[in-house]
């Protein structure tokens, strides 16, 4: 199954037959005080810099979130997306829990965006999915509903199926629903990781849809998070994860994704792996201090 997203000039295909798609997570003011302050003041320099840096580090898409408390989020989200589009040409993942903000962003976006996100809550589905349809976008479906997040993998699959069914009811093709099987931190529940992986395996087997997740969640509350995140990518990609919202500026994560692509047969003759290595060699040589 293929999920195709587009910017004005670039197309990205998410598929289990293709290399993994990294959706850069950095443009999000939650927990980033300086970014939040700048965005509130309408200063988009850091947003632009984050966009460029993430794309250079291998992000094929960028998540844009403007959730600053107490702000006019629709206007700010539109401004942030415009700033990102000025400096990069990758497709955007429009991230908001405010429906008006999603709609405002979709209205100005040129291309086919990925909407982040809808849950299986009836009210959310019936408000968000018609908007997704109207603008011809794709959407991330989170496998939780009014009752919360179940820790039974098959139940998460059924919740995902409900979102796909409802999307189809509103005229959205099933391949345009990317399922988030939900990654929770293993710090709070040692079984959280394996439950997520089993959910992925079942979704791959029973639904076949593309899957994404907020991968950095798995290591919340733990030390040395990049390594845990990197290991998660290796196992999750094997279980069926085809894209993820994460930070490509973390070298461990970027490399784990590339290496897993190679091991899973998505990097013919290891050309991406080798060229990445060469680029790094070149960079290291350029920045090497002059010997005295």
């Amino acid at each position, binding site marked *: 199954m293929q999920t195709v997203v587009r910017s004005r000039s670039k197309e990205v295909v998410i598929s289990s037959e293709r290399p993994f798609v990294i959706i850069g997570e950095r443009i999000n003011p939650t927990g980033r005080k300086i970014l939040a302050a700048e965005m509130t003041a309408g200063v988009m320099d850091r947003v632009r810099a984050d966009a460029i840096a993430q794309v250079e580090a291998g992000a094929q898409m960028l998540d844009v979130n403007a*959730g600053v408390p107490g702000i006019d989020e629709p206007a700010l989200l539109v401004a942030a997306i415009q700033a990102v589009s000025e400096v990069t040409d990758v497709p955007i993942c429009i991230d908001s829990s405010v429906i008006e903000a999603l709609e405002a962003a979709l209205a100005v976006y040129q291309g086919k965006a990925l909407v982040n996100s809808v849950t299986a809550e009836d009210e959310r589905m019936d408000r968000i999915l018609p908007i997704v349809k109207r603008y011809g976008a794709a959407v991330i479906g989170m496998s939780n509903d009014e009752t919360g997040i179940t820790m039974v993998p098959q139940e998460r699959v059924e919740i995902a199926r409900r979102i796909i069914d409802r999307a189809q009811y509103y005229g959205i093709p099933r391949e345009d629903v990317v399922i988030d099987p939900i990654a*929770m931190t293993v710090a709070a529940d040692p079984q959280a990781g394996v439950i997520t992986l089993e959910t992925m395996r079942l979704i791959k087997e029973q639904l076949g849809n593309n899957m994404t997740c907020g991968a950095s969640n798995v290591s919340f509350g733990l030390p040395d998070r990049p390594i845990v995140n990197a290991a998660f990518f290796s196992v999750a990609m094997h279980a069926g994860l085809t894209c993820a919202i994460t930070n490509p500026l973390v070298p461990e994560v970027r490399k784990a994704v590339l290496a897993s692509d190679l091991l899973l047969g998505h990097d013919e003759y290891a050309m991406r792996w080798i060229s990445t290595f060469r680029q790094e060699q070149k960079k290291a040589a350029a920045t090497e201090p002059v010997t005295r």
Partner: protein
Amino acid sequence: MSREEEIRQELFDHTLNGHAPEVKALTEEALNLGMDPMDILFKALIPSLEEVGRRFERGDFFVPEMLIAARAMQGALVILRPLIAETGAKPIGKYVIGTVKGDIHDIGKNLVIIMLEGAGFEVVDLGVNCAPEKFVEAVRANEPHIVGFSAFLTTTMPMFKVNIQALEKAGLRDKVAVMVGGAPVTEEYARLSGADHYAPDASIATRMAKQIVGAAQAAENPALTQAVELIDKTLKKG
């Protein structure tokens, strides 16, 4: 060192390291030796969990370590609680807590509950997705010292204000201290919402709760003021 002293030290160490079976066995041994349940609680278990909280705040301890320490302590509390209830000792305070309406995130809230119970609070957990009426009803029914609202999303944070207005409307606002917290919440946002306290993490939430209750009890009983000041000083040193 007497065996009693040894037991206190071992309880402290095993709780700190989250060794539930050892904590349970030591608690039973202590009771068999005739040690006072309050002694076990206040001289071994609670100081240990306070140390866990301090280490967590410093970044020396991580979430799983806090969880297993609290679990080890809960094993002892199950044994001690009925005995302490017999002696007529009361919990140090009452705390009503829940995740606000529209929000189903509960990891942070659950950590706060564990730390509060460990510190000797009676906690009423309203769960997730709690409507303002539910908070109002729980405050009315339980008469807690503190009510805590947790929110993980910028879109659900406005419920703090809604909840506080609901408490005002019900005439309960001045009867309870309001504490708020959650990933996107800031001190300033908490203040603008009309909350009394902002807690950036579970350990700080618990320390603040103790100060609030200390203040409340001191208002009722001036003799306690000195003890509360002593506790505060000890905590600041850590």
